[in-house]
């Protein structure tokens, strides 16, 4: 469902490729033992290697390599048995070595594919070109002193995975779906926390436009897009800019542009004259990285069930719709919660009932209260208890909502609340019969009307009985008794 833009010269197609930098979850950096904890005091997590002191040498963090392989497998990619670390040379104050150790022509992970979910319920495959490992730079701070810049090297040397997609993305919605799915996969794998606001996941968006069927247009690379929303906004702006430029007779320049979230615009970051020649070459301090098929397979064996697999299983095993399944698998903890809520020996109806309760009631109230699932006052176990009460007709669905509200407020379990408040559904035919008799006796006029053909009044009688029983009468018993007596 490619989004086409109507311009003066006809329809325009948006072509997007993304480069995502994901900080690898690891206790220490890519080539040093320094800590990677976020938010520590400036320059408190810097080893001699990170500061590029004379004679210091990088030593590869093997756990990070496993994380990269895990991620590669999670995005259905080829893992390269041999990869090479290369130096990307440039000068900057927050780049102590004067080069970034990265991977250039031999990355650890090759081609793969990520399935994205579109709003209309369809899916689309976005191909991944590569994933490579590289060091992060430090952070320059220009606002701490009137004439000097300060440098914090805590981030210097942290491991990043750069995940590069092919230009298969066709508009802001697909871009948002891509980044969301990728982030979901990384979080499932535990290889990146995906926190875009802390900078542990950053995206560069390569955007071009063309008339459908034409060759690829010249792309601009947009940096500094730090949220899914910003990605969409930046794409909207940049696409409009490029179309206007071309239709006014201009040409798009291949350049890096910065997204300004305040002015809501992209602007040119560096001119051609400053274009870097990074002088990549294999880092002679590191040997080529060899990974055996056995290693790859043993890592594959540790992979968790991934979002798409889970979604398909929820649809297949529990009979859920695509939407419900997608909502439930969005976070691994949510999916786990849902699965613990489903009662033992459940059929499809029970599973759907559980899905409704998790999505509509639980997630609804959590969202309203801005409470994360991990801090929910209603545990999965106690929500399961409530659903069991509904399922075995102890309480009706309507009463259950009141019970749930009480559970959320007090943290008590459903059974206790039902017991305390005497909310047990009445299934005793004798008791209900007495109420039915009472209702019939008190509403002779309506009885006449019903008997003379006004069928719709049946609902009125049910309502009256339920009211008298304070909602506790079993609706099935009420129905059959009323039918019999009227």
């Amino acid at each position, binding site marked *: 469902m490619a989004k086409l833009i109507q311009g003066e010269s006809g329809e325009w197609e948006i072509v997007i490729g993304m480069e995502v930098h994901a900080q690898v979850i690891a206790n220490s950096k890519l080539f040093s033992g320094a800590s990677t904890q976020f938010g520590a005091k400036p320059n408190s997590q810097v080893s*001699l290697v990170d*500061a*590029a*002191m*004379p*004679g*210091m*040498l*990088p*030593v*590869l963090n093997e756990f990070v390599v496993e994380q990269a392989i895990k991620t590669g497998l999670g995005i259905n990619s080829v893992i390269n048995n041999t990869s090479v670390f290369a*130096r990307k*040379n440039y*000068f*900057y*104050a927050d780049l*102590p*070595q*004067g*080069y970034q150790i990265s991977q250039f022509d031999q990355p650890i992970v090759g081609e793969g594919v990520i399935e994205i979910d579109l709003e209309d319920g369809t899916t689309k495959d976005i191909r991944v070109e590569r994933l490579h490992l590289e060091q992060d730079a430090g952070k320059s701070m220009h606002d701490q002193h009137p004439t000097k*810049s300060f*440098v914090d090297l805590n981030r210097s040397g942290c491991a990043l995975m750069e995940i590069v997609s092919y230009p298969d993305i066709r508009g802001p919605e697909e871009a948002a779906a891509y980044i969301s799915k990728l982030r979901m996969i990384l979080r499932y794998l535990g290889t990146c926390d995906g926190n875009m606001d802390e900078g542990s996941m950053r995206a560069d968006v390569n955007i071009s436009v063309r008339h459908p069927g034409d060759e690829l247009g010249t792309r601009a690379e947009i940096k500094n897009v730090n949220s899914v929303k910003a990605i969409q906004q930046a794409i909207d702006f940049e696409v409009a800019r490029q179309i206007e430029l071309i239709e006014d007779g201009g040409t798009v320049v291949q350049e890096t542009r910065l997204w300004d979230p305040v002015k809501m615009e992209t602007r040119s970051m560096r001119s051609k004259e400053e274009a870097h*020649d990074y*002088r*990549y*070459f294999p880092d*002679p*301090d*590191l*040997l080529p990285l060899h990974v055996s098929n056995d290693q790859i397979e043993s890592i594959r064996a540790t992979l968790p069930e991934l979002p798409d697999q889970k979604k398909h299983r929820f649809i297949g095993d529990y009979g859920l719709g695509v939407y419900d399944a997608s909502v439930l698998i969005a976070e691994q903890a949510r999916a786990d919660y849902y699965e613990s809520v489903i009662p033992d020996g459940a059929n499809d109806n029970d599973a759907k009932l559980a899905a409704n309760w998790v999505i509509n009631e639980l997630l609804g109230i959590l969202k309203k209260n801005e409470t994360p699932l991990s801090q929910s006052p209603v545990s999965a176990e106690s929500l399961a208890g409530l659903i069991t009460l509904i399922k075995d007709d102890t309480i009706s669905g309507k009463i259950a909502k009141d019970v749930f509200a009480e559970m959320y407020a007090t943290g008590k379990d459903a059974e206790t609340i039902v017991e305390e408040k005497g909310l047990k559904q009445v299934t005793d035919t004798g008791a209900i019969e007495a109420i039915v008799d009472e209702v019939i006796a008190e509403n002779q006029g309506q009885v006449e009307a019903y008997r003379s053909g006004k069928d719709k009044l049946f609902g009125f009688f049910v309502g009256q009985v339920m009211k008298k029983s304070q909602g506790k009468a079993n609706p099935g018993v009420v129905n059959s008794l009323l039918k019999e007596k009227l």
Partner: protein
Amino acid sequence: MTDLTNLTISDALKGLDAKDFTAVELTQAHIDAGEAAKGLNAYITETPELAIEQAKASDARRAAGKAGALDGIPLAIKDLFCTDGVQTTAASHILEGFVPQYESTVTANLFADGAVMLGKANLDEFAMGSANTTSYFGNVINPWTREDGKDLVPGGSSGGSAAAVAARIAMGATGTDTGGSIRQPAAFCGISGIKPTYGRCSRWGTVAFASSLDQAGTFARSVEDNALLLQSMSGFDPKDSTSADIAVPDFAGALTGDVKGLRVGIPKEYKVEGMPAEIEKLWEDGIAMLKDAGAQIVDISLPHTKYALPTYYIIAPAECSSNLARYDGVRFGQRVEGEDLNEMYSKTRAEGFGDEVKRRIMIGTYALSAGYYDAYYIKAQKVRRLIAQDFDKAYEQCDVILTPTAPSAAFAIGENEGDPIKMYLNDVFTVPASLAGLPGMSIPTGLDANGLPLGMQILGKAWDEETVFRTAFALEKAANFTALPQSIVRQAA
């Protein structure tokens, strides 16, 4: 020269054990000799107080029966090895005043065995040079002199280390060899020195010049002393990914003197045009000595030899251009302030680096640039592989290779300065083995017409320093090189 400063390390260890003298006496003798030989400019930083302190601790260890393999032996440490609390300059202005808070693995190993540090030896700036004339702290003078009285170079880049050992102001020294920086100065100074297999000694804490070539090694006045020093320095280091996790053999144990049946390869390509007759003679003498000792002489071919120098002068500068990017004035060393970051960089580096370093950074930057990378760097890497294959093939026919170490004896300061290419030719015999990562040793076997020492080079298979030592030991015995630098002779007289 005193009796103590003229001892070999192995004899000094015996003397210390026999309580003939103490480590403090031994160290003090070398400190005094160093004072007298200050004119050589062999040291950038002398550490006499630290040396005496270490010597006292050594005497205490020996008294307690806990002496290490090199306990009490005073050494010169090339000022490329970072030493905890002692200024480390790489002979560059840009690192002047830099005091590391860490100890290189090689020096840590030596100190763990009880070695004493007399000071940080002078060298060519960032180990770039073949005459020790590029040091910011002044050139080093060879203790050997020629009849015309001109000051001679000690060779480079480890010129200070070689001069110190030859002048008896250190019993041994560490060096580093990237393209010949141990072997050529050893030959020029009439002592022996070995560059082991790449990966034998850790590079951690050694200021990098060209990472894929740099390798630490030793200088001493006997083959056996080199074996003792290298034993201590060698070994796997998890902090250096290119250091090899291979057991270190007993080097001194290889000094059997027996070379019967040893196959010695003589590469025809090393008979370069215009080779001085006396170098050719030296080579023939060396061949004859080994033959007499029972070795078998084999003619071999290393067909890509002539490409070694140009290959080296692409790869080494390319790596150096990147390795030296960290000297940017931001975190340590010299800084010259500028209007903005770029100006600070250019002013700092313009002032901090000398001409030869700048030249190599520029060559290397050019060789790695987009559009030239394939033609230079990639091509050079391919040729490097061919050169390594030459050796692999040759070693199917022989166990070691014998060649001259350098194409001439030490030359006068300034003699080769005008033409960098002529200077680079000094490395013509040493560079190929560096490119192949192979061990090589130089030992003095004769004198030229001017009475200056000449060295022979023994190259070995990877990880086979033992055979190199064994051959060198036999050649040392046969050559019986006893000549001394004129200054030492004068002192003795």
